[in-house]
């Protein structure tokens, strides 16, 4: 088991090195660089920027160096845990991510809990009461939820909340609480802003999860061991929770790890529409503005998390599903 983990981690490292190169290339790919964007902004702001100044700036940001040199400098620093500095913010990338991390993770985890809390019971109920009215209702809800683009839902909900409740929309805090220390009023303000993101981000996840849970459980319920159990007079609830459910939950467990990067980045598009100060929009802005080191480091961070997540998923499957555990022990 331990050697398996070590092996996986070694693979991950090789993969990360390759990934760092690919992501750096991809970020460099669009024509122009951060300076072009800056110059455009300055020109829109009525400033004449001359060639000499551009050269000074290129030097200052190190943009005049050849591609490989820039890559190696960045990657070398990355190995030492230094993610570089964002051009646009003039701040270390780690600091920028750090500032947004807490809120992002809070929202992501809250959504996740909400999603599971709603989806798993409904999925179980749908499967055990297949083709009942409630199953159809849940199915209808599921398809609508899956089919509605999140950002559209966000816009509609924002409009409703703004129009009928008169709440401040967009962002997580009203302007007057932006700098106020934490107190009850600020918490209430945050709670007022939270429902929309939670509902919007949660809907698609919930809808999908209901379908997965229902399908997986239906497969199991038809199997012989369930029939046998029932024939032997096992109590229905105990029968369900002890055997088929534990197997039906596998697809969900195996995808838990994938959520790790999603928890850190949050839903980018939705966050953008809702004006949430989370990591997703930061990444988008960095890519739009060609803020190289910020974008590169974020991509690296998310990739590393994705790989970690997959490892965790695999390990969790081993724990949850005895069949995998025994299969591995048998081959080892």
């Amino acid at each position, binding site marked *: 088991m331990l050697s398996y983990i070590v092996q996986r981690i070694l693979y991950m490292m090789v993969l990360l090195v390759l990934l760092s190169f690919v992501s750096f290339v991809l970020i460099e790919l*669009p*024509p*122009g*660089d951060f300076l*072009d*964007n800056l*110059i*455009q*902004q*300055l*020109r*829109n*702001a*009525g*400033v*004449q*920027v001359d*060639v000499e*100044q551009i050269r*000074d*700036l290129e030097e*200052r940001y190190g943009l005049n160096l050849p591609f490989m040199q820039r890559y190696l400098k960045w990657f070398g620093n990355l190995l030492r845990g230094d993610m570089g500095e964002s051009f*646009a*913010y*003039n*701040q270390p990338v780690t600091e*920028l991510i750090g*500032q*947004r991390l807490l809120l992002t993770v809070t929202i992501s985890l809250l959504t996740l809990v909400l999603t599971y809390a709603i989806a798993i019971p409904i999925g179980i109920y749908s499967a055990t009461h297949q083709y009942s009215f409630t199953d159809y209702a849940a199915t209808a809800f599921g398809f609508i939820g899956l089919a509605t683009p999140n950002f559209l839902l966000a816009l509609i909900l*924002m409009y409703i909340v*703004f129009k009928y409740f008169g709440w*401040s*929309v*967009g*962002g997580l*805090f*009203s*302007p*007057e609480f*932006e*700098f106020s220390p934490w107190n009850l009023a600020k918490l209430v303000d945050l709670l007022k802003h939270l429902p929309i993101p939670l509902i919007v981000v949660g809907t698609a996840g919930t809808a999908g999860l209901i379908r997965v849970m229902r399908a997986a459980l239906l497969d199991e319920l038809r199997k012989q061991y369930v029939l046998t159990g029932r024939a032997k007079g096992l109590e229905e609830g105990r029968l369900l929770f002890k055997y088929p459910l534990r197997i039906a939950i596998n697809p969900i467990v195996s995808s838990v790890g994938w959520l790790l990067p999603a928890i850190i980045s949050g839903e980018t598009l939705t966050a*953008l*529409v*809702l*004006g949430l*100060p989370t990591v997703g*929009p930061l990444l988008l802005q960095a890519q739009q503005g*060609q803020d190289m080191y910020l974008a590169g480091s974020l991509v690296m961070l998310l990739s590393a998390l994705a790989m970690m997540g997959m490892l965790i998923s695999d390990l969790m499957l081993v724990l949850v599903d005895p069949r995998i555990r025994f299969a591995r022990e048998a081959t080892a």
Partner: protein
Amino acid sequence: MPKTFSLLCVCVLLSVPALTVVAAGAADEDASAAEPAADMSMGAYNEAPMLAAMVADGELPPVDERMPLEPAVAYFAADDEIGTYGGTLTVFHTSINPWADLGYETEIGGYVIRANPDTNALEPLLARAAEMSDDAMSVTFYLREGTKWSDGHPMTADDYVFMYEDAHWNDKVTTWNWIPQIKRAIKVDDYTVRFETDEPYHALLAKHASPPGGGWQVFHPFHYLKKWHISHNPDADALAKEEGFDTWDEAFNHHFFWAPQQDLEQPTHHPWILTERTNTGKRFERNPYYWKVDPAGNQLPYVDHIQAQIVDSETYHLKIIAGESDFAVLGTRFDNFTLYKENEAAGDYRVVQIPAPVVGASVLIPNQFHEDPFTREMYRDVRFRRALSLAMNRDEINELVFFGVGVPRSATIVSTNPYFKQEWEQAWAQHDPDAASALLDELGLTARDEDGFRTGPDGEAFLQILEHSNEADVPVLELYKEHFEAVGLKTEIRLRGDLWQRHNAGTDNIYTGTISSAEFREYTDAAKATEYDSGFYAVNWGLWIRATRDLESGAKTLDDFADGKIPGEEPPDIVKELDDAVLAWGSSAYGSPEYIEAFQKVFDIHAEQLFLIGSVGVTPNLGVFKNRVANYPTFYKPEATWPGDLLTSADKLFIKQP
């Protein structure tokens, strides 16, 4: 000997040949013309209750000691009111950068001198008086004694000299907006500073009424920053290392640079101080040492705090219509006009159209150095450029994109300029697709492909590629595409993030961008002449002309250029003539006969040559202001070069009591 009149008001519109002296008198007149002040006996100024409380607690010196001996008096238009103190304004920014509503960390105090919006005359502002020498080679500023930085330290000639010697002229320090003609900065005494040039520069004084005169965080506190600068502290490198930087310039830039501002301790001379900043918001507090009063002797600003939240650019509009934003002008978009208007009552705000000095939205500049010989030949032929211009349906663009409030026009100076000619605006600006087609036929573009597009020598459709770098241009470009294709020119629109660099390297196709920086009344003329110089629309010709001038004047020899060759490309005679006129325009005194002749020649040539092809101009900026906010800007000042100049009178904003 320089002329020094006091109380002299130089009226530019009256074409006084030399702008020479700007004295404090004009500002005093403002004060005496206004309503009698509540209590101005013995120069006792009023202050905000918030500051009065601090004075009572002994945290601050009394207001009279905090302000200059003669404070500057803010310009109040006839409909501006004397305000009341207090309150917080809420604004929204769309990026961390300071060029945002009431942003600028927060640079809205105005410049060292200003142009009076009523008389157009230059008058002192941050300086007490200013004078330019008769030979236009030096300008002297007499500073207001007792002006202080926001930490209470005096602001003196040292700060002005520091700005040039240690910031603008130091390669390792990033700054913008200096006046390149200035070669020496001399401290005459603590409150007198002189800037000198090597050659006569007639815009030298007037240029100080624009950002180089103190906007864009041009002024910085010498006393605070000097310890990080190697010229003033030999141990600056060691200090930098102590603070975690590699070299002194990194540390200096950290403390000095302001986009965005990192060091919140750095004192300012602007009306509000940035006290808190995160990546999602900023908070500003009034500067107790601000050097301006209203005509009734109340120290400005009126408003105590500004809070800014940084939001996505779409959320910005949502915040406006929800009535959450007190003051929005820099991020508003004209295509949202009806959206703002619909929610005007519910949001308790008003939408104000502010006429702007826009030469043209999405002006086209065909690349005169296109790599494809056939395309180049076409773009260099004036008939082709005229055909493009005639093919455009400017009225349609105006109606569809600008709700009919713009002016269909060719790319020329705006009509408020005193030397403007109506014919420039209308040159080749009629919609005449038949004439355009006839011109294209005349150029030999008669063969068509199966889709009806005119073909080039290779038998393929002759493609016009409109390159842009701003999404806001797209609605106009889509219409150009329709108009050009109607006369048989296949057209494509491409987004290029690096358009400006491509344009400067002569590798673009057809550059498109809004030209909005020409002033209404042409104050800082010589600087803005650049947009009509080949250095702007045809870089290689500009390079050749400048290099040739340097060779002729003896400033440079052939050895100074790479490969010992003149850089760029020799332009046609008409361009040489045009650039000579631009030079004469910039180097003659404003309003002199030579000036008018040169100025008009520039636009006569442009009107015929169409190196820049305009569409619709003078489109307004939209200001959205809450009804409770008073003294908001409604017009561009004479010296304004861009919408941010609307903020330079923000110190007189106030919140009306219900």
